[in-house]
Structure formats: C-alpha cells, structure tokens
C-alpha cells in the first residue's frame, strides 16, 4: 500500500483509522530494545571509550602523540571536523530547503536527517577542541568579558567557525525540536507510565489547538527560511578556514560552493547509510518507498557531479593560473606521495556515483546502501587531500614534509563514529524516526 493514498479513496472513518495505524507503526519502534540494539549500542560506546582514552593520552602527553609535524599542522582532526560538519548538512538541507521547495519526499527523511545533523554537529564540534594544543583553555576562543580585558580576534576564520557552528547547532536543535513537539504530544497520548510523563513535559503541554498550529506553522516557515541561508553559510565559513589562508590548494574562491556541494553529497550518502537499515528494522516500508530513495539517489548523483566538476575546475584553475606554486601543488596531489589518497577520492566521489545514471541501480536499496559507504569514505579523503596535501608542499621546498596519522588520531576518529552512532541509536529508540504529523497532514491532501 502506498503512502500516497489519498483521503479521497477512503471514508472519513478509514482516514482516522489510517492515521491511528500510522501512529502505532511508527511509535512501535519506541519500545524495549532487543539484544541487537544493546550490542550495537555497546559497540558504539566501546568506540567512544577508545576515543576517550586516545584523547586523554593526547591531553596528558601533548599533541606529539599525533602524527602532526612541520609543515602539516592540521591533519586527521580537522579532516574529521569538516567531514562531520559536511554530514551535518543534508539534515537541514532536507528539512529546510526541501520544505521551502515543497518537495514531498522530504517528510520521509527529515526527522532522522535532522537528528543526524545535530549529532554530527555535536561530533564535529568536538574536533576543534580535540585539535587544540591547550584544550583546557578552549574558553579563550569565546568572546566573553573577562578580568584580562581580552577579546577574541573576529578577523580569524576560526572565530567565524565558533559562531557558525554554534549557531548551526542551536538553530538545528530548535528546528528539530519544534518539529518534534506535536509528535511528542502524540507519544504522550500513546505511551503510559513514566514515559507518558516524560513525553508530556517534553511536549510542553501541546494540545493541538488552532492557535498553536497557526503560530507553529509560521515558526516552521521562518525557521526554514532562516536555516536555508544558514546551512549554506556554515560550510562556506568552514571552507573559509582554508580559503582565507595563503596556502595554495586552500586559497581559492570556489571553495564555498565546492564545500557546500560536497557537504550535501556526503550528507545524502549518510542519510542513505542510516535510513536503509532503519526502514528495514522498523518495518517502515509502507511509509518510506523506493521512489523516495530514488529521489535521494538523484540528489546524490547531482551533488556528485557538482563535486566532480569542482575537482576539475581546481585542476583547470591551477593549470590556467600559470602560478608555479599552485601548479606544483596539484601535480603533487595527482602524482606525488599522496597520490593514493587523491585517487581513492576520485574513485569514490567521481566514478562510483556515475553508476546512479542506471535506473535500476538507483532503485536498489542494497546497492544504494553499499554505494553510500565509499562515498562517505571518499568525502573524508577529499578533506584529507585538501588539508594535508596542500600543507605538505606549500612554498618553501626546505619545509616540505610528509604527514602520517598516528594511532591516537585513528582512535579519536573511531571514537567520533562511536559518539555519533551512540546518539543516533538512542534517538531511534526514544523518538519517532518519521515526522508523523507531517505524514498525517499529507494524508489529507
């Protein structure tokens, strides 16, 4: 049965029953977890533990436990940061931009995608702290009145980052929560006991009166309108961390759109990575259809092509610039000591999405899910290439050097995945993974 089923085909009683069924199906996931869930959660927590131990080591001994060196001052940590910020992108893209565009398939993914956004920003937000030489002084990055009479340097892209990322986290959280309020009210109605009380408090006493809906709709629209430029700005600001620098391979005007496209690309891949299993495990086939996934696949394909175009433009600009530093930088990316990383990226991000031109590939969930993994890996390498290779060979041949990540850096990276999935797993068992209110609204149309 299709979720496109219109009320016209049903009697009013059937519509109400269908809405009730929808609630039951989706809220069925919020139940006592089975051992598989616990195993998955234990794995995630173990990864977090690995990350925590690694970070502790690093704090105690110093950043020397990483592979960072002269001239590569940023490595895996900043790569991870940009990667997670990128992942965070498609959440708001799906919920805000597609909302404004009235793309219907949005409502199948927006809840989980927004959750993914928040958890990914929470993860990403750790990395600027982790990569600090003196993390215990992180609060010096915040502009607050202090006895030292000191402020932060608002010209630094890192301070822009502080503002962009914290704004993004706050606004995404508000957006997500606002969308959740009516669904929490449904949970309050369905659940009993202590759960009822918790959902009751969380839903702020939402009743569903016309007035509430009126302001709610208005708010949702405004938030979507605010979040749309925000989502574009956040990754632009992140890209300016690099584009504002003098380093060749960083210092380029195409970075903002290039990074935004890359972020959406990796974000969509991550949504697929997460939603395919959720659809299976929670038996939501009825509400999330192959058609919906195909639309996501098209978005993936499109952003993949944008990213590929950016890769080509980078090379073309370097060639056309006549600038020896830039030319050598890109020659080094293609054929130098890091060629393995560059070609891994090309294979994952340029070649593999081309398969989506083939319709059956777009419609095979198994294939999409498998494809989403190399795209995630490829996007990680894209950031790695930009950050590390540009630094490894910049201006002065004497100062060239090769960076190899250390076990601590991998440990923290693993920890970040554990951190993200830990939150996501808890989310699937405590909150509705689909936006029930919106699905119900669609039934009427």
């Amino acid at each position: 049965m299709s979720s496109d089923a219109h009320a016209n085909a049903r009697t009013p009683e059937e519509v109400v029953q269908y809405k009730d069924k929808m609630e039951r199906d989706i809220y069925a996931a919020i139940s006592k977890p089975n051992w598989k869930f616990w195993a998955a959660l234990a794995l995630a927590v173990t990864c977090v533990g690995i990350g925590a131990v690694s970070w502790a080591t690093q704090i105690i001994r110093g950043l020397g436990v990483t592979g960072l060196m002269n001239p590569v001052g940023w490595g895996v940590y900043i790569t991870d940061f940009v990667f997670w910020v990128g992942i965070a992108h498609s959440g708001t893209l799906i919920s805000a931009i597609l909302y404004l565009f009235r793309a219907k398939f949005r409502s199948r993914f927006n809840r989980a995608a927004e959750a993914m956004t928040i958890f990914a920003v929470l993860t990403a937000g750790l990395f600027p702290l982790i990569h600090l030489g003196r993390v215990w002084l992180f609060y010096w990055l915040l502009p607050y009145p202090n006895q030292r009479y000191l402020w932060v340097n608002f010209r630094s892209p890192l301070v822009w980052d502080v503002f962009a990322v914290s704004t993004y986290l706050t606004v995404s959280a508000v957006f997500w929560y606002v969308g959740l309020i009516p669904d929490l009210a449904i949970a309050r109605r369905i659940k009993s006991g202590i759960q009822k009380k918790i959902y009751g408090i969380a839903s702020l006493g939402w009743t569903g009166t016309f007035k509430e809906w009126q302001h709610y709709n208005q708010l949702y629209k405004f938030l979507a309108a605010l979040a749309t430029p925000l989502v574009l700005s956040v990754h632009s600001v992140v890209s300016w961390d690099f584009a504002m620098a003098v380093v060749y391979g960083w210092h380029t005007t195409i970075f903002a759109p290039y990074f935004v496209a890359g972020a959406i690309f990796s974000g969509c891949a991550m949504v697929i990575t997460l939603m395919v299993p959720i659809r299976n495990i929670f038996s939501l086939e009825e509400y999330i259809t192959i058609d919906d996934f195909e639309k996501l696949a098209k978005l993936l394909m499109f952003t993949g092509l944008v990213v590929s175009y950016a890769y080509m433009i980078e090379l073309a600009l370097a060639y056309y610039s006549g600038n020896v530093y830039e030319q050598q930088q890109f020659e080094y990316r293609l054929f130098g000591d890091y060629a393995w990383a560059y070609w891994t990226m090309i294979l994952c991000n340029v070649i593999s999405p081309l398969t989506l031109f083939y319709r059956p590939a777009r419609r095979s969930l198994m294939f999409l899910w498998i494809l989403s993994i190399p795209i995630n890996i490829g996007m990680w390498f894209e950031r790695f290439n930009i950050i590390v290779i540009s630094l490894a060979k910049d201006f002065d041949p004497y100062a060239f050097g090769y960076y190899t990540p250390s076990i601590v850096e991998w440990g923290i990276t693993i920890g970040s995945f554990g951190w993200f999935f830990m939150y996501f797993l808890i989310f699937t068992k405590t909150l509705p993974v689909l936006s029930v209110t919106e699905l119900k609204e669609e039934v009427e149309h």
Partner: protein
Amino acid sequence: MEYRFDDKHSFMEKLEEVFKSGVKPNDVKMVLPHPDHDIEHLVEEYTPASKLKFFTLAGGLTGCFTGFAFPSFTVLDWPLITGGKPLLSWPAWVVIAFELTILLGALASFTGMLFLSKLPRFSKMLSPDEYGNQYVLITDE
C-alpha cells in the same frame, strides 16, 4: 459544547457556520490533529494572522546590529593590529553579523511561538487533554 469530526470537510462546514453566526474564533476552541492550510485560510478570514514575524524581525535586527557593534567594540577596547588590516575591518564582521542574525532571529521566533501559544503549559504537561486524530470544536454554549 463539543463537536467531533472524523472528516476535515464537515469540520470546516461547521466552523464556517459558527463563525458566520458571529462567534469570533478566539471564543471557540479548535483542536486539530495536524496543521491544515484550508482550515487556516478559513479561520484567518475572521481573525488576524500570526504576529510571529515581528519577533523574527526584532531578533534578526538585534543579531545583525550586535554582529557589527560587538566586534567593533572589542577591537576599540584593546586595539591590536593583525595582518596590517585596519582595526575596524568590517568585512570580517559580516560573517559574525550574519550568524548572529540567524541565531537571534531563530531564537526570538521560537520564543515568540512559545509566548504567543502560551507554551509551555505546565498544567497540561502531566494531565493533558487528548483528542486523538479527530477534529474538535468546542464552543461556549
């Protein structure tokens, strides 16, 4: 008086009838299972639209102003030159102003929604009124 409808259209008919009888939307209580544009349009013929936008505007303007004023204050408070740039290097402030516009705009909107909807409604948190998936109209009579 409480009317319950499974069907949106019969609910709307009833609504129109009540409003035409001179009852103001503020005097009745309407409960919907989800937002609905048709109902919204109907009701807004008899009552003004949401004033939420003023909250958004106020928040956004505050953010924008702060975003330019605050960095300017800090560089004048302790002038330090970096990279040969003038102290008031306002192009860099644009990013800050933009982010603060969004941040305060969003937070003000959210606060506005809570304020206008009189949320959180503590009394209804633990003992809520539940109406299921039906359209409900409650009038005074």
